[in-house]
């Protein structure tokens, strides 16, 4: 008997993205460029984070016509974003047949208390996290993939590094804990102990963890791989750079050869101007703080 939407099928799909790059796209043409550059999936959305940041207003799920046209344009998987807690947007995207849903703090949240109960869906979800507690809460809600948040649309890697390091440090702590310490720690960080036990056993999150937010150069992508990311999401970093084709290809190559500085040097040569970056101190809105 065939079983669909099982945990093995959802989590297993995320494993297939590993060691790859997922790129934000806003048009079918950009989706084709991303596929050509070697992206393992695209994220279909109306505006890249840099523009959401600049233009403000309420950011929502993209128009369905746009998502469908992107699904038709490429053969690689297509992901799309819903607002945090927006069950209806998620149902709509599932009905359209998108391959993965990103319940994303980059869009304006729809619910100030609850995230979507992702166990109720056949389609798998990816959610953002800044620390182990947040990651484990999302997994408990049914997220089959985690991305450390970074600060989207800034072209500044510092927040992505901070969150990846935080998750790593917390996992290292958990690895040394006894059962009673684990229960107490779970209470402290607001995380269910059953999943923390899996973390302790595996020495990592029990689902795939990609780095996201602020990746603007091949070296940025390599840095996140060195810190233990399973792969990288790139948003504004590609289509806000001077030459998206070159930049996209270079970032894909750097995720493959992150451990070989000589090859990275070659990849990093002559790739055109990266997106303009922003200092985190000067930001009025921090997207990473959305989601709890």
């Amino acid at each position, binding site marked *: 008997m065939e079983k669909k*939407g099982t945990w093995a099928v959802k989590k297993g799909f995320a494993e*297939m993205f590993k060691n790859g790059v997922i790129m934000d796209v806003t048009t079918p043409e950009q989706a084709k460029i991303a596929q050509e550059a070697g992206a393992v999936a695209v994220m279909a959305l109306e505006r890249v984070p840099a523009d959401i940041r600049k233009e403000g207003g309420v950011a929502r799920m993209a128009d369905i016509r746009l998502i469908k046209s992107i699904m038709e344009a490429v053969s690689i998987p297509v992901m799309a974003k819903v607002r945090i807690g927006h069950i209806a947007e998620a149902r709509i995207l599932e009905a359209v047949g998108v391959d993965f849903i990103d319940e994303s703090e980059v869009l304006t949240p729809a619910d100030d208390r609850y995230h979507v109960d992702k166990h109720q869906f056949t389609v798998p979800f990816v959610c953002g996290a800044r620390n182990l507690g947040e990651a484990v809460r999302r997994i408990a809600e049914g997220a089959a993939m985690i991305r450390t948040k970074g600060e989207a649309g800034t072209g500044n890697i510092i927040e992505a590094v901070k969150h990846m390091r935080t998750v790593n440090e917390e996992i290292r702590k958990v690895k040394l804990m006894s059962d009673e310490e684990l229960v107490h720690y779970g209470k402290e960080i607001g995380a269910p102990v059953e999943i923390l036990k899996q973390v302790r056993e595996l020495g990592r999150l029990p689902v795939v963890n990609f780095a996201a937010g602020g990746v603007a150069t091949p070296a940025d992508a390599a840095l996140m791989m060195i810190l233990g990311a399973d792969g990288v999401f790139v948003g504004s970093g590609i289509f806000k750079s001077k030459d998206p084709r070159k930049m996209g290809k270079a970032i894909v190559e750097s995720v493959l*050869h992150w451990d070989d500085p000589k090859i990275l040097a070659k990849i990093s040569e002559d790739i055109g101007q990266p997106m303009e970056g922003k200092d985190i101190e000067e930001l009025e809105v921090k997207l990473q703080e959305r989601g709890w």
Partner: protein
Amino acid sequence: MKIGVLGIQGDIQEHLRMIERLGHEVIWVKRPEQLEKISGLIMPGGESTTMIKLMKRFEVWEPLYQMLQNGFPVYGTCAGLVLLAYEIENYPDQDSLKALPVRVERNGYGRQVDSFEVELEIPAIGANSFNAVFIRAPIIVDWDKSVEVLSIYKNAPVLVRYGNILASSFHPELTDDVRIHRYFIDEVIKE
């Protein structure tokens, strides 16, 4: 024995773990010279388009193509099966290593919402059924008579052998069941 896992993109680590559990040494293969050190290669699941591009850019494609012609043992899972096939029905322009005389349809079982797991009968590896995870899997729509069909689901072969080549539409590396990996090592590589 040293077994390689094509380490370009996809669920490489899951395969490495399987081989280690079977007590063999593993190599994460990213560069052409690493191909010379191994007795067999596993091609993981992932995105076939991405893998093809990077294999060509980093010069793994041509040597592997030659080795396959000369009988080098390779096991392809999902995207790996697509890479090995003679023809890709719905993307005729997509290149492949043309080592396995089958025609496949990429994502033949549908998109991710149609992905599924199912118990399969695979007599070649034992009497107990095998829990097979199909993820945006390719479907084998046509195959040469010389291809040995080791398991069939809904009238399409899902595990096949053709001399030095083993290929499955599904992902045994996502389960704890090592029998197909063991079959590859004991029956395909050692022959």
